[in-house]
């Protein structure tokens, strides 16, 4: 059943949030995209440093020896599915369905937590195999890159849970759908960064 809701055009110079902007677009959304563009440079630096140093390790403690590809593939799948649940939350928020919005935001946070849990397990396993942060240039650049990504996912989980809490109290200021969309943009960015890390770091051998 296709229930179609068409939102009225935004009036002169007014963005979705209701405030006047010179572009007619939301300043918050513009700022988020600008932030995400700058994040590309941050992760670009970390990825290229890893690429440079990935061959600098002892013979028995390189990526080909320690990576567990089936396990990381499952983690990647979990994070990918969290992008689906996030976009469903954004869709529900656009339809002003608070119950489904909170549900999908919570599921997204749980999937994100599963991914971070997997990363903690992976780090612990590497450490037990003798690959610590300062063991080699490879390990330092690997832990820095994936650790930074893990911190981004953790921040995303905190944002999601805070959003659920604030939404339940009905205290989201301004356009609720836009706030959910902004958190969604951050979450999807974290996912696209992992898409690159998974291929360049895990799947392409040294």
């Amino acid at each position, binding site marked *: 059943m296709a229930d179609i*809701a068409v*939102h009225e*055009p935004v009036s002169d110079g007014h963005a979705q949030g209701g405030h006047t902007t010179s572009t007619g677009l939301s300043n918050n959304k513009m700022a988020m995209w*600008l932030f995400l563009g700058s994040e590309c440079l941050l992760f670009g630096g970390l990825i290229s440093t890893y690429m440079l140093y990935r061959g600098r390790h002892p013979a028995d403690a390189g990526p080909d020896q320690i990576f567990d590809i089936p396990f990381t593939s499952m983690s990647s799948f979990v994070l990918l599915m969290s992008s689906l649940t996030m976009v469903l939350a954004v869709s529900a928020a656009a339809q002003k369905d608070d119950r489904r919005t909170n549900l999908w935001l919570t599921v997204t946070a749980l999937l994100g937590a599963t991914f971070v849990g997997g990363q903690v397990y992976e780090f612990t396993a590497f450490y037990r195999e003798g690959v610590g942060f300062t063991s080699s240039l490879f390990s330092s650049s690997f832990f820095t890159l994936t650790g930074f990504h893990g911190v981004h996912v953790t921040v995303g989980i905190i944002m999601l849970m805070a959003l659920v809490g604030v939404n339940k109290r009905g205290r989201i200021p301004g356009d609720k759908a836009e706030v959910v969309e902004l958190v969604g943009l951050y979450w999807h960015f974290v996912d*696209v960064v992992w898409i690159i890390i998974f291929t360049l770091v895990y799947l392409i051998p040294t």
Partner: protein
Amino acid sequence: MSTTAEHVDHADGHDGHEAHGAHEPHVHEHKPDSYYVKVAIILAAITALETSTYWIDFGPFFLPALLTLMAIKFVMVASLFMHLKGDSKIFSYLFYTGLILAILVYMAFLATFRFFSPT
């Protein structure tokens, strides 16, 4: 469950005529949930294909295939889940400028360190 909501944002509010001349009205369309599920299934299938390279030898196609699949996944998530497709072009410019700048800067960085030189 299959509900379609459509935001039609006119930057100028004069039936599509541009007030500021620098931007065009854009359509931000929320597709039905089933659409996003289909996209996720395709993304999952591509991930499975990527992972299969760990067990199956693709010979000389290994690296180009992996990079192509990675790029397809990236663009799909950015365009369809992040709604860059159908949203204002300014957002695409902001994001892809950062991305392209990062690629160029770090390719130059790696070239400086002779990363691409045969050993």
